[in-house]
């Protein structure tokens, strides 16, 4: 996806070249440590950004790589958040096992729904993901005894991480915890997208009819990546529940799914870092403009969406890549 292939190589060699670490990536990940020293009073925000970035990464796997447009991805985020929150509320606040519970909960629902997802494309797919998200939101609203309904889930208590690091008010532990989880999942996702499986996903994105014709089990691939994305989204939701010690009904809302799309598209879909960059820009901007009434905030999101679609079809990272490619051609 980055640049144009200069010489014809086999797909595996190409994937291997893609998988090589670039200096700018190392710079990026070292820079994620800067908030600890530069802006220690903003660590809570930083942890929220890391969680959102993880969530965006999960959408990128299905949208950016397999080309599945989902308008209901918040369903898995919310499932993870509620699973971790409910486990913690009922007396087991150990964070790491909470993550596992959330991953299993979101992953099993993701696996079950993936059989439907894999059968549809285009409008039907958008409809089904949207409907699923709305359905879950409504169910959580109705199940007041379990989820607290519109009041949110109260009384979540997270035990110290590794029985040692307390979750403090300033967010040191929260940010370190979220960042480590984000990095580990990112490594796995990076490995996956540069594997033959990842190449097959890109094939599905580029031409969904041709892939089965050359013998690739497209539906099985879609089922697998959709389940993976659900697991990651669930982990992100669990992180939010554990670090904020509350779960609001809003985790399942349509707005959250739509905002996530905005971030991913703003950063650039199909390039892993797109979601991370988009999440950083989006969350910082929202923090800066938090004085604005949320109603009007959506006005600017709307404008941003229209502008990105019209002017910057591949997001910020896509735009940068194009500039770089043009400069290389000029040189």
């Amino acid at each position, binding site marked *: 996806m980055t640049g144009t292939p200069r010489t014809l190589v086999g797909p595996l060699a190409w994937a291997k070249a893609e998988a090589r670490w670039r200096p700018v990536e190392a710079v990026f990940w070292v820079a994620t440590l800067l908030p600890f020293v530069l802006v220690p009073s903003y660590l809570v925000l930083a942890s929220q950004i890391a969680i959102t970035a993880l969530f965006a990464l999960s959408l990128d796997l299905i949208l950016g790589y397999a080309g599945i447009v989902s308008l209901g991805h918040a369903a898995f985020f919310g499932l993870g958040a509620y699973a971790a929150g409910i486990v913690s509320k009922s007396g087991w606040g150990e964070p790491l096992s909470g993550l596992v519970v959330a991953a299993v909960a979101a992953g099993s629902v993701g696996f079950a729904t993936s059989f439907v997802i894999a059968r549809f494309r285009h409008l039907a797919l*958008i*409809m089904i993901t949207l409907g699923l998200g709305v359905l879950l939101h409504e*169910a959580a609203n*109705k199940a007041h005894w379990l989820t607290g309904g519109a009041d949110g889930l109260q009384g979540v208590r997270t035990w110290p991480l590794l029985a040692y690091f307390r979750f403090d008010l300033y967010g040191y532990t929260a940010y370190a915890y979220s960042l480590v989880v984000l990095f580990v999942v990112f490594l796995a996702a990076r490995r996956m997208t540069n594997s033959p499986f990842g190449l097959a996903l890109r094939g599905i994105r580029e031409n969904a009819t041709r892939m089965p014709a050359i013998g690739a089990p497209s539906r099985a691939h879609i089922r697998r990546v959709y389940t993976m994305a659900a697991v990651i989204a669930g982990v992100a939701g669990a992180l939010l529940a554990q670090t904020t010690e509350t779960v609001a009904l809003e985790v399942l809302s349509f707005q959250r799914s739509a905002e996530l799309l905005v971030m991913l598209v703003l950063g650039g879909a199909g390039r892993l870092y797109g979601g991370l960059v988009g999440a950083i820009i989006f969350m910082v901007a929202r923090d800066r403009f938090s004085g604005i009434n949320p*109603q009007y*905030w959506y006005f600017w999101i*709307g404008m941003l*969406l*229209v502008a990105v*679609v019209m002017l910057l079809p591949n997001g910020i990272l896509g735009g940068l890549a194009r500039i770089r490619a043009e400069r290389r051609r000029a040189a």
Partner: protein
Amino acid sequence: MIGPVLGVLFDGLAYGMLLFLLSVGLSVTLGMMNFVNLAHCSFAMLGGYVTVTLMNQLGWPFLATLPGAFLAAAGVSVVLERTLYRRLYRASDLDQVLLTIGLAFISVAAAAYIYGTVLQPIQMPPYLRGAVTVLGVRFGVYRLFLVGVALVIALILVAALEYTRFGARVRAAVDNQRMARGLGIDVDGAFAITFALGSGLAGLGGALAIEIIGLDPSFAFTYLVYVLIVVSVGGLGSIGGSFAAASLIGVSDVAGKYYVPELGAFLIYLVMVAVLMWRPAGLLGRR
């Protein structure tokens, strides 16, 4: 015994007719261009606010505001179609979804800015209030009016689509867009007109909806889900399908909320899933 059942059926039918007006335009334009327009309900909301403004600020009678709602929604949709939508006809689903969600967000924020987030009150004229009782069943006059309007519009649409030259072009474009182009039909032009008509009908639906379901800025998203369900259950590009699906969804929603309140909100989704499992292209869809 039969009275309450008939009453629920009638209320459901009236609600379904509202959904029909809101969704028929989207169904036809989607069938023609495969353009995913998630801002469709924003046009409906626009129609609603035009009616509210004309009635409450300028003192127009309710019936006179309805053409205004239609024209306003159609006019705005033409402008947007010419400036934004037409560039994305051949773009991916994702780009279309993003653009139209963006427009929907803008419309929600603009409505909240101008009118606030409260429900808009309107005062129905006396001849549309009250109810008539036939064989022991009460029929709301306004709902009767709504069903009448929807039936007339459905008949006009079917007649226009079946018996006019323009209708033949639209049907050709829905059946096979590329073939229609190949035969020299101006598909883009036909689409622009259809789009304006569909958005206008949504505007009309929005104006008629105020009395039944109320109007506030969240309308654009709340009813989008219902409209999309009607479109996918009915099948793309089919007026009859939209009509049948809207009636089915309207009746199941009202009946569900009346008889099984704890399941009420889910019943329409179950109906949708059941129909799509049975006929993946919708009730009367061909693709």
